[in-house]
């Protein structure tokens, strides 16, 4: 059954285990490929991960003059092919979220490939495997549908979608505020 990366931003505790794990998938040259931000560090300890959302129509791939960024049949937007990437950084500029990173020494772009060696066989990516707070989860569409029923945000949106995002994404993101609609037990 197809599973997706699903993000519940409310849960993030800022441990950056996802970044540590990103270096460990075996195919990432021990470099982490995503971000965790302190949302307002002088005020509180809120943090949030910024992961590649694996857009259905990815700006990074569209902007690549060398067609170095391939899309896997699972929907994962892969890292640039080493032999094709010309190091122009169009992808980094084009990505609305600034995801693709750039290796200045090798003149190559690199980005999250959703641990394709794992996810192509149904094994969760490293980040979602280790995430201690369940900010990052690896779920079936049915499980994501259940999340949608469970959480009602007061803005009527339960996940990021248009107009917040540039387009539809394979990764589903749940905005902070999931607890707003919860009925308390007592």
């Amino acid at each position: 059954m197809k599973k997706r990366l699903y993000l519940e931003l409310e849960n993030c505790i800022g441990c950056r285990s996802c970044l540590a794990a990103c270096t460990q998938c075996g195919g990432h040259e021990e470099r982490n490929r995503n971000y965790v931000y302190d949302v307002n560090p002088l005020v509180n300890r809120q943090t949030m991960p910024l992961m590649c959302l694996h857009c259905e129509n990815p700006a990074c791939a569209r902007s690549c003059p060398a067609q170095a960024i391939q899309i896997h049949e699972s929907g994962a937007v892969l890292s640039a092919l080493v032999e094709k990437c010309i190091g122009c950084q169009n992808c980094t500029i084009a990505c609305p979220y600034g995801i693709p990173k750039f290796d200045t020494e090798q003149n190559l772009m690199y980005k999250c490939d959703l641990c394709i060696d794992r996810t192509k066989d149904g094994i969760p990516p490293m980040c979602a495997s280790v995430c201690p707070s369940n900010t990052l989860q690896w779920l079936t569409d049915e499980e994501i549908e259940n999340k949608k029923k469970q959480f009602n945000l007061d803005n009527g949106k339960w996940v990021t979608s248009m107009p917040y995002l540039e387009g539809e994404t394979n990764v589903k993101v749940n905005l902070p505020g999931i607890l707003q609609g919860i009925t308390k037990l007592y």
Partner: protein
Amino acid sequence: MQRDKFFKEIENLNHPNEKLIKTHCSYCGMQCGMNLRVNTQTNKIIGVEPRYDWPVTVGKMCPKGVTAYQQTNHKDRLLKPLIRDDASLKGTTEGFREASWDEAYDLIVKKFKELQSKYGKDSLSVFSGVSMTNEKCYLTGKFARVALGTRYIDYNGRFCMSSAAGGFLRSFGVDRGSTLPWTDIHETDCLFIAGSNTAECHPTSMFRIWNVQERGGYIIVVDPRETPIARRADLHLDLQPGTDLALANGIVNQLIELGYLDDEFINKHTNGFEETRELVKEFTPEYTSMLTGVAPEKIVRAAELYGKAPNAIVMFARGVEQQHKGVDNVSAYTNMALITGKIGRPKSGVATFTGQGNGQGGREHGQKSDLLPGYRKITNPEHVKEVCQVWNITPDEMPKPGVSAYEMFELMEEKTIRGLYLLCSNPAVSAPNQNFVRKALKNLDFMICSDFYLSESAEFADVILPAVTWSEDEGTVTNIEGRIIKINKAQEPVGESKPDWQIQVQLAERLGRGKQFSHLKTARDVADEFRLASKGGYADYYGATWDKIEKQDGVFWPCKDENDKGTPHMFLDKKFYHPDGKAKICALPYRPPAEEPCEKYPLRLTTGRVVYHYLSGNQTRRIPFLHDMCPEPYVEVHPETAAKYYMEHEERVRLYTRRGEAVYKVKITEAIRKDTVFVPYHFGHEDSINLLTIAALDPISRMPEFKACAAQLEKVEIKKVQ
């Protein structure tokens, strides 16, 4: 073991030419399951793979866990014994030369014998730790008493778990850190969490904790800082450091006032309620608020939420325990569960977040100055007799009780203790009042240190013995829940390093105690003797064989025999471990912290951990990812307080107390009380916040008051006027 809703059947990724060794993390009491990736050609550990099938943590790991494997083949590993001939270089990394094990052992035996013949058996001491297996902890206690014959052994649990132990012993008559398995946490209705920065110190508890809120339950957090868990809590009780006892009494007052008592439970299963009711009468919300700085309505609300909950768990950690009234704090918060009867059933109970990997098991089997295996007392002649039979010595050979960890430094300073065998600990960072502790270490006639890196404490040693990491040996550990689990060996020891149990056997033989030690040839041999030594004690591990641990995904103690499956939930029969079978509700008068703020030192200093480092940082500071994320300590200051001192974010400032001073970068955040500053304690030398902390000890647990003392800030540079 029952698998809960978080458990998913997931295959692991197998890379070519690799095998996976199932084990657990080397760090905190969570003991997250992990697989170590081992290259089958080089037989070296090369990485980590989640252990999805471990029922407690289902593959999850914090950043320390993910990178833990990098310790094993780290460039800083000690590969050979080191000897330093020039004692004037103590306290530095200089002057060490490589030596053979024989030369090191010969020197140690010669020096130990010299000291003991000149100054008596008790001139030697052992200072150990609990980030090692039960087998090693057990043998260290035996080594001190039998091979060295000294009364002076104690361990770093005095800086970690001993107040929880003391509180539980007084309230329940037994000290198991959690009365229920962690797999109950997400099913409870209310979590009351005091003095635990859970998201940073025990991150893999968080998916269960957040789930309580998703189900509509409540989280109440008690902390002077708005930690990540406090930020999302339903109620944050932002108390002044060191005032927990007042808060707990205030909540108990309100639980009584608002009628949340379980009278039947109190009558049948507890003692001490009437005295306690009398004592807490004065702790009205207003009076409690005056003592703690928490708004009165928050105190009432906490009592309502906890009192109304069908099921609730009271949890706490070092924040309440590392005080000179830590034991009282533990018993006072435990009172909440006892007067409402929320204990002795699934989904309700009391738990402490065990700090060290084997904080639970390591304190049960004889490393503590007055304890013997199975939680037996060295002052009880019956207990001594039982252990002597296993140890093959006569009761008159058993030393008397010694003193606690910090008090050993006092004896070193006054030369009662002249020799030290330090292992699995780094007190030159982790002990309070460092200026004194470092002086005491320097004052020793002879010190040996066993470690796998050259720690700040090893810098004071005459001989350093290279120990193995957790991944190069096997044995059991008792995790945060009281579940005995198995650590497996993934790689042969690097260089000439050896496991501590083997070092102790070989030293004991050279000290003429081969009869008591020579039969211990493998870790399993030690395990078998250890289970036997614990048999009949209340921390009975006899039935927890390695096979059973493997088959059942761990065994909860007590586990008395082959057919006993262990005890995940304590007190289900409502029988507590005091002789009359009842728990004790404790009437505990409030005492302020040992050192209150004054005009000269107007701020409250509190210390703690960050998610990227473990204990003294001797391990984690060497891991590149963790170092990059948190390379140096800092002082957290509220913006209003910083403005008063004209301090800016990231400016370097001097922080000082009556005992010492250090210079830190200011980290401005509104997520801390205005009267409180915080510094993480994982750093050594001149960066160590323990240069400033106070050694006020709890009268029962002998735990120092790391969590509260009076401090002052000062600018170190005059900034240009803009």
